[in-house]
């Protein structure tokens, strides 16, 4: 029996790299994204790479009212779900958010509320099914608020805490909940930023997510060295931290 995997935000570079790993295993895939062209491009590619069946669903994930319908469609298409990866997101402009409530709310809607909505719906399904894996791409940015991107960080922090609770709740049902915390990744989302030595390729991160999902890990930093880095960053006393330019 091949693995049945739902991938939300399937045109994101990280999700696509993870999907490639599942495709190689001959998985059945249900892909969700908002651009029809990109969705088709990715679906065709994954079919060539070995995915047994690829179904697509066009959706702007900020449209929370349609999440239930989409999720039901996924179950109807694949029969049963083994894994869910939520990977959509935007890296908003921190400066703009500081000047605009609407902008800030939009950021939280995309990177936090839409994910919590999807998790609320899918958690009940997996809990009832009593097996499976839910993985979400959060970020190291959620580990500590920094002036350069705390709106994005807030959204990711909320997601990470939500997942923590969910993991606690679903562990007795045998469902694993994986929090993925990538550091800097060279993707279209970060194309405008300078890339340093710590920037990882989406291939590396995608493979890491695939492995973490197969193993049903808890919290995964990708690449691994972000765990000690964030440990240090989290342990800096607030009195010192507030004067740093991070």
């Amino acid at each position: 029996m091949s693995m049945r995997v739902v991938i939300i935000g399937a045109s994101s570079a990280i999700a696509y790299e993870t999907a490639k790993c599942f495709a190689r295993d001959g998985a059945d895939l249900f892909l969700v994204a908002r651009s029809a062209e990109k969705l088709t491009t990715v679906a065709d590619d994954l079919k060539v790479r070995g995915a047994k069946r690829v179904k697509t669903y066009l959706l702007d994930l900020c449209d929370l009212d349609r999440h239930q319908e989409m999720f039901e469609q996924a179950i109807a298409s694949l029969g049963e779900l083994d894994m869910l990866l939520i990977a959509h997101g935007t890296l908003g402009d921190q400066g703009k958010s500081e000047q605009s409530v609407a902008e800030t709310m939009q950021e939280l809607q995309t990177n936090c509320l839409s994910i919590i909505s999807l998790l609320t719906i899918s958690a009940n399904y997996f809990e009832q099914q009593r097996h499976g894996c839910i993985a979400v791409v959060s970020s190291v940015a959620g580990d500590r608020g920094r002036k350069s991107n705390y709106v994005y960080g807030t959204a990711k922090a909320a997601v990470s805490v939500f997942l923590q609770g969910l993991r606690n709740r679903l562990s007795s049902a045998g469902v694993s909940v994986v929090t993925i915390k990538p550091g800097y990744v060279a993707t279209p989302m970060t194309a405008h930023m300078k890339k340093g030595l710590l920037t990882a390729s989406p291939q590396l991160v995608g493979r890491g997510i695939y492995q973490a999902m197969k193993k049903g890990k808890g919290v995964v930093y990708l690449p691994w060295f972000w765990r000690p880095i964030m440990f240090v960053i989290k342990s800096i006393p607030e009195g010192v931290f507030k004067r740093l330019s991070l």
Partner: protein
Amino acid sequence: MFSANKMPGSWGRYPQIAPNRVLPIFWRDELPNLAELELSILPHGYGRSYGDSCLNEDGILLDMSHLTRFLSFDVEKGLLRCEAGVSLADILELIVPHGWFLSVMPGTKFVSIGGAIANDVHGKNHHRAGTFGCHITCFELLRSDGRRLLCSPEENTDLFQATIGGLGLTGVILWAEIHLRPIRSPLIDMERIRFASLREFIDIAAASEQDFEYTVAWVDCLASGKQLGRGFFTRGNHAEREAPNTIKKKRSRTIPVDFPSWILNTQTIRAFNTAYFHAQREKSVRKTGPYDPFFYPLDAIHQWNRMYGKRGFFQYQCIVPYNDGYEVMKELLERVSRSGQGSFLSVLKTFGDVSSPGMLSFPRPGLELALDFANQGKKTLELLEDLDRVVCQSSGVVYPAKDARMSSESFEVYFPHWREFAQYIDPKFSSSFWRRVTTTVGEAKQVPVKDCKKEQ
């Protein structure tokens, strides 16, 4: 594993020139409006061209390395369609388990399919299969006026022929379809034969073409006198018996730093070449092994170009016609040997008469010689000029994909019909190579030789 913000360069690391900026292309339907860009444009893949044909000083490079998706794979017919940035390594990983192989394999698999078309690359089976372009069934070309043209031998034929071997100047290849070759096993039956002279090489090559799909030879370019042109002839075929179509991956190594330039000098290379030549005692050795080391011995060492140090290196790759091929090749090898330059990586090969659709393609029937030279400034450039004189006189040709220094006069001799090709160049596209070889003496040369002068 990690990608720092490096400026894209070329494999020979000479010349060291920078574009004005690099535009990454992530999706086929999200290219910038090319007509609105104020500078000249050139698509750039993995920078495996050796000289400046993949560079655009002060212009714009379109980084195609993110377009790595497959469009379709007909496993019955062996037709594969993929985006321009897909590497041959990615293609092999996909197709070999299905019993397919690339019809033409260049010396490295770390090139993009777009680059393989733009340089109309060739492989060890040129005498049988012709060039990479011979196996392209169609591709989509984006021109700066916004037109997306499907080019094939039947449709937009002129642009199809101009783009194959067209050095990326005719527009952006967005995706291409290639015809694959079936294999029964991923293994190669190979044989390595020692030869003592250039004459013997030519005899073995002639005797091998009938029965062997792949032929190539390593030559000791520093040997002189009676030993001139000695080396090893390698020939092979795909193994015929059925075997599992998967091969365990070997770990590759990386050269982490630039070698100091003194490591590779005439003495060390001469000693190495002599030791290498005598390492095989038998006249001929046969074995069967995986395809990777047979086709890409150098791919096992990532960034082997660092061996030549910071100043980079030149590759001189030429073909001379068969008629007086022996004399010309002997002359070339003598000059190289006398100069004491030259390196370990020297290749001899015979080319066949399968013609390519490409207008500006390099491959043609004749004897091919490829030599690496560490960049030692003026001394090296003068030797290469010297070799050019010999090749020009023999109506031979030098490979643009490997070139960083040929004069516009030599280019004119090698590619007399380049003006005919030039009418298909997209008006917004250019490259450092193209400006260099089409600027006649007297006009301001755009690619300075300053790096070398500094070092004198």
